């Protein structure tokens, strides 16, 4: 498949606010993104010409924001909307190996949906993890350092070297990843190569406490994928650092490259779809 044939659904509902940057990232790399409102998939769109099916797309993106005002729990309402309408389509989408990505609120939605960590099934009946309130009790909005630790399973990070540290901003109040049955779950996550990004300090050290770890997440985990590597969620926002000028130190450091630290995530997933389909 050519990049220009790759159709990306950027899924929206009320309260999502990072859809434009996510759309732009794919468009600027030559793919064909489209804003799709959940009502279009539910077939409750006012005009039937706007009805859409998940299978029309090659990549599904769940953008950041505050869907449904973060009521009940962040992501819970959007997740229930997806599950009740296109849950089966989504399972098929994932099982076909098509990539699904979620950043920030998108990650929270995926965890509430049960597609991440997703080790017992493609989409579990009940959530197997949660993104709980930050330990600080605050909304943490600033740059964060992330080390890419995936050994190769994740299709969203193939363009990033293992152990490379990147600066990607966070902006969330609920980012503390807690897994069910922690004694076994974390070992399983690491053994199955499902951990993708971990917060670190300037030396790349994972022992880094707050503020390097903005939310108190155990083992400083910032992003994970499922065991087949196509479903990926992270709390930080790679779409906000697509360009170098979006970095807080771009002028001081006078780095001549113009790509920001987040661009490789989008390039990686497009690479994967080009090769695989």
């Amino acid at each position: 498949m050519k990049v220009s044939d790759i159709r990306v659904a950027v899924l929206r509902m009320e309260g999502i606010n990072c859809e434009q940057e996510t759309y732009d990232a794919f468009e600027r790399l030559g793919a064909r993104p489209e804003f799709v409102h959940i009502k279009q998939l539910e077939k409750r769109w006012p005009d039937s010409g706007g009805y859409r099916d998940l299978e029309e797309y090659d990549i599904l993106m769940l953008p950041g924001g505050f869907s449904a005002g973060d009521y009940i729990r962040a992501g819970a309402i959007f997740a229930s909307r997806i599950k009740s309408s296109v849950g089966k389509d989504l399972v098929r989408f994932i099982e076909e190996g098509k990539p699904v990505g979620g950043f920030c609120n998108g990650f929270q939605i995926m965890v509430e949906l049960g597609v991440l960590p997703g080790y017992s099934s493609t989409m579990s009946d009940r959530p197997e993890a949660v993104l709980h309130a930050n330990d600080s009790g605050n909304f943490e909005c600033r740059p964060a350092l992330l080390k890419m630790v995936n050994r190769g399973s994740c299709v969203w990070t193939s363009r990033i070297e293992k152990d490379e540290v990147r600066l990607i901003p966070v902006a969330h109040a609920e980012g503390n990843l807690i897994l069910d049955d922690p004694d076994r779950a974390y070992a399983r996550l690491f053994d199955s190569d499902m951990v993708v990004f971990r917060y670190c300090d300037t030396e790349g050290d994972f022992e880094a406490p707050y503020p390097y770890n903005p939310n108190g997440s155990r083992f400083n985990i910032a992003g994970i994928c499922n065991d087949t590597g196509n479903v990926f969620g992270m709390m930080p926002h790679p779409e906000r650092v697509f360009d170098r000028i979006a970095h807080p130190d771009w002028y001081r450091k006078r780095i001549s490259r113009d790509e920001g630290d987040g661009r490789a995530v989008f390039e990686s997933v497009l690479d994967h779809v080009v090769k695989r389909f």
Partner: protein
Amino acid sequence: MFTIEVKVGLKKGVVDPEGSNTLKSLNLLGFEEVGSVKTLKVFRIEMEAPSKEDALKRADEMCQRLLMNPVIHTYLIDVI
């Protein structure tokens, strides 16, 4: 018509930043006798059901499917 109250709280051992910040502020305001504060979320639900037992059963399903996350939450359902 039944009115159901669902109280969702955090399991023992799960950090409650809102509760601990409230505790700190209460202590600073002079309520030194306060030793612990935990936050709960309460949903008051009005619903039709053939019996009280049915209402409780449906409310339990609501908790399982939306109102709480079993990884960190406990919940209590009352008919009021």
